[in-house]
């Protein structure tokens, strides 16, 4: 009960003191969904610069990255936010997986260790977000416990969520599966890599961020 009261007080205080431009927009999801690719696309579109490096090897982003004061416009609408790119959330990390893709032993161990810290940080930061974009690989099965746990935790914290089904440039892409798995949320199909349908993404972002 105390927890509920504390959450309520925090929410009221946050709303009272939230200034325009101080909205924290988090990018969450499993590894290799395309969070940093989308972060780069947003930053390129509105700031003309990249946010972080991307790779086909999982856990490329192992630290929280923040880009402040991104201002996006669509017609008369305007939204300013701090973009928070988070490491992918996983329930298992095996350094041997990195050896299989050609990394040296020390490099693989170090990447695995950093990746575990990254997951911990991502979960710790959940409470600080004002709006969250869940970035899922639209070619993969969305019905994983990691996805369900992240979305469930955001719902419990009453944080607005937009689901992005990424990689709609690929043949295996299936947005219907994602919509069926999370019917209570808006799902937007995009290709962050090629910028396909990102206009629809920005429209949806305006709607969800002002909730």
């Amino acid at each position: 009960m105390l927890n509920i009261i504390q959450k309520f007080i925090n929410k009221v205080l946050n709303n009272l003191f939230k200034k325009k431009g101080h909205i924290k927009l988090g990018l969450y999801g499993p590894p290799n969904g395309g969070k940093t690719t989308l972060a780069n696309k947003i930053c390129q579109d509105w700031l003309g610069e990249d946010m972080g490096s991307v790779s086909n090897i999982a856990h490329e982003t192992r630290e929280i990255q923040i880009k402040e004061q991104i201002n996006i416009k669509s017609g008369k609408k305007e939204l300013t936010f701090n973009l928070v790119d988070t490491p992918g959330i996983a329930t298992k990390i095996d350094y041997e997986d990195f050896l299989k893709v050609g990394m040296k032993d020390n490099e693989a161990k170090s990447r695995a260790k950093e990746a575990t810290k990254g997951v911990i940080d991502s979960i710790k930061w959940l409470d600080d977000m004002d709006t969250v974009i869940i970035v899922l690989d639209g070619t993969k099965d969305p019905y994983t416990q990691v996805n369900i746990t992240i979305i469930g935790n955001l719902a419990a914290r009453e944080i607005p969520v937009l689901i992005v089904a990424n990689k709609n440039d690929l043949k295996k892409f299936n947005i219907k599966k994602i919509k069926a798995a999370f019917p209570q949320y808006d799902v937007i199909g995009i290709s962050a890599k090629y910028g396909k349908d990102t206009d629809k993404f920005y429209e949806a972002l305006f709607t969800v961020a002002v909730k």
Partner: protein
Amino acid sequence: MVTLQLVPYSEIELLSSVGRIRKLLNIVKEDKIVLLQGRLKKEEEAELIKVTMEEINKDFKGIELAVIESNINKKLTGMSRFKATLATALIGDRQGLTVIGPASVVKEIKRDPSKIELLTKEVRKKKKIRKKIKR
């Protein structure tokens, strides 16, 4: 050989969140697959992932996790639904089933809302064993 350990909800009912996670993880770290009656709170699920990450080392690679939710509460309406929600908030969620396995034993848990498919790995023979648990 794969060992399954059934944990009735009554065994974790009186424990704190930290205690629940500790108990379940200790079983998993003995290379056993936990079948927990009911489910953890959403925050506890996230905490379980966090604690798992803190404990990963060369012997413990993490966990595979899946929760099958019960449809019973979803079918209820009006006052019955309110009562069920209140009961869940007060005494915990005893409906459904939570499966937690060590990543060294469980290769993957494929799931849809009504069934889960557990793929285990046999380290010595490199042979996959398929098990199906249906509601």
